[in-house]
């Protein structure tokens, strides 16, 4: 089971919880499991079957360019963060 941290604006859908356990080998599967536990979350995270353009996903603290296809090791931590652009 991975621990998914819920961004503040979405905690209304998780009964105020900041973190939710969920099962899944990839981020996509995790979101499907989350949707079962807290309906409405998927629609807030995805757009057209992909992560919303202004969102990134971090698995164990690492922003992943693979998005929904990123593998999620057991006991991992998953965060949905606002997409951050690099810069010099």
């Amino acid at each position, binding site marked *: 089971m991975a621990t998914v941290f819920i961004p503040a604006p979405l905690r209304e859908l998780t009964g105020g919880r900041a973190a939710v356990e969920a099962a899944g080998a990839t981020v996509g599967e995790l979101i499907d499991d989350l949707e079962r536990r807290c309906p409405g979350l998927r629609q807030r995270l995805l757009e057209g079957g992909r992560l919303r353009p202004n969102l990134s996903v971090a698995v164990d603290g690492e922003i992943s360019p693979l998005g929904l296809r990123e593998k999620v090791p057991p006991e991992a931590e998953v965060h949905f963060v*606002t997409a951050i*652009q690099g810069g010099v």
Partner: protein
Amino acid sequence: MSAPAYQVVGTRPIRHDGADKVTGRALYGADLELAGLLHGFVLRCPHAHARLRRIDTSKAEAFPGVKAVVTAADFPPSGDRMVDLGEGETPLSYIRGNVLASGKALYCGHAVAAVAAVNVHVAEEAAGLIEVDYEVLPHVTTALDAMREDAPLVHEELRTKEFGAPGSRPSNVAEHFRHEMGEVERGFAEAEVIVEREFHTSTVHQGYIEPHNATALWNNDGRVLIWCSTQGSFVVRDTTACILDLPVSQVKVTPLEIGGGFGGKIPVYLEPVAALLSKKSGRPVKIVMSRKDVFEGTGPTPGSFIRVKIGARRDGTITAAEAYLAYEAGAYPGAMVASGAMTVFAAYHLPNVRIDGFDVCVNKPSTAAYRAPGATNAAFATESVMDELAENLNVDPLDFRLKNAAREGARRADGVKYRRIGCVEVIEAMKNSEHYRSALNGPHRGRGVAIGYWFNVGLASSCTISVNEDGTVNLVEGSTDIGGTRTSVAMQAAEVLGIAAEDVHPVVADTDSVGYTAVTGGSRVTFATGWAAYEAAQDVVRQMRERAARLWDVDPDAVEAVRGQYRAGSHRATFRALAAQLNRTGGPVVGRATVNPKGAGGSFSGVICDVEVDPETGKTTILRFTSIQDAGKAIHPAYVEGQMQGGSVQGIGWALNEEYYMTAEGTMANASFLDYRIPTCYDLPMIETIIVEVPNPGHPFGVRGVGEANIVPPPAALANAIYRAAGVRMRRLPMNPAAVMEAIWAAAK
């Protein structure tokens, strides 16, 4: 365990492109000459906000010497396609709209049309004959004004994105997000001292000395050849292909030397325009921006309004922190407020924290990255409030920071856990420095400190290394080199190969000749491209071990390679010796690697500065300035020092004199290097540097990108020093003499 003794890493070789740079032979974009070359000039909107009712280019097209005129109408339609160009997903219509305005011009300086002619004087005169029917609209130029209900709308169709739930009514706020951890209200209830302050920062520009330039040839075979000064040749290729609706393979970008960027040369401005002009005229077209164009028509960093509230107990432990960040995105969304939010409290371990970020469109040039984008604005607020808190708690400002410093395992406000970081080590290095321990005597003098963080990025890089028979190697990579990274990348390959850095010949190749390489930004080149060079060199070593095995008739696994010495049993050979026999042992050896590394360890930076403030004029003189930064492992120490000194002086300029001085009409009054005051040589003391090395476990040599964190602390450190020198807390940038004088008068009332 003591750090491994490296042969090349940590030394200071002369940069490979040095001779060209000091003799004037180095070829920058504006220096390019091509047969039949035409010169372009871009006509820009003089109004802060205007509808483009009609553009009549007939007189310009008839002007003698003019060969082509283009407007946005010449672009293929972009529809609602989204593109990811290394800066996160963005609507193509926004990117294309910023290259040539269509429908509305959103800021003074917004490109409206372009002319190509036999020389730039003719092009400029002809551009003056283009008749544009502007319907001037009301404008708004600050975040707070733009957030009001009645504010003029920059984009009528824009709705505020709130984490997946778009707002219903039109707004200038493109996005609002919130990070929250723990219980903030309870935290503030436990606090015995609370400081809450509001801060304003002005729009500032990266200020690179080389104006943007681009040369394009729409060749007769349909390929678009581009030569330009950019931080991302692949970004230019992909963006230009998208805007012109061409397959990527049809665009080839050759990056020439780049005269500074600091994030401002990541976006695309001229290349698609030059390409269109070339297509219409059938000749190569070069466009070079004037300094005024660079200020008004490229991507400064956001002006911002920030409110920070921090509570702490008497024992100096922070119990809660809250931040409200409203950043000006400029004409198109994307104000780097997300990175501001991520770094505003990044230096501290906070149990209870809430951060609200607002990305607000205004009628100003569309902002681009500027060295740790968003972090300097935020740190100016946080580090000023931390200084006030330390004073209230009667504790040394560094001890107060040390007590709350973020350590490995601490969670940032967005929940992500820190890996090994050097925040504590940087603060301790500041405390133990000769500068901090030295006395500062004399009236009207003060010392200020501040710290800052940048998370750095990995992203993709490619590299190939081919071995020459004389034991040297040719290294091909795709990262445009602003600060000497050709050398810091070559050094990492040399270390693995066990040869001298001078024996590696690095080349920054065009987009046809090297694998995809992401932007030169996010302090990533020495980290990520360096890693690609490390892996490519390992690939070479593997192949050389096979060649030795063939020579000695042993199993390749039996061959050991240590610092360029190959051995198996009694057999011995140097890299050079093996290289000389490549033809006999199987032909050329080429190592290759592509990386998309994680683990780009963030870098912490600190500043100690002593100032004197003239009580009669408010002018701040910097007496002494020290920058401290964690580099993980300094590959080329002189270049690390150079990044720290350059970032510090940009931070000093941002703090003391740089601003976009906007007129009531929403135009920039000081679009020149005379009145946009970047620091001169005569305004500064030597910039002392202390390099801290807390190795980044995520990199073969422990590298942390150092390019950006160093610009973050200076404005706050200077504000804190000015407070001790003149007794006034400055909460608005720039802290120029007039502002400090007015604060002194106000305090005296």
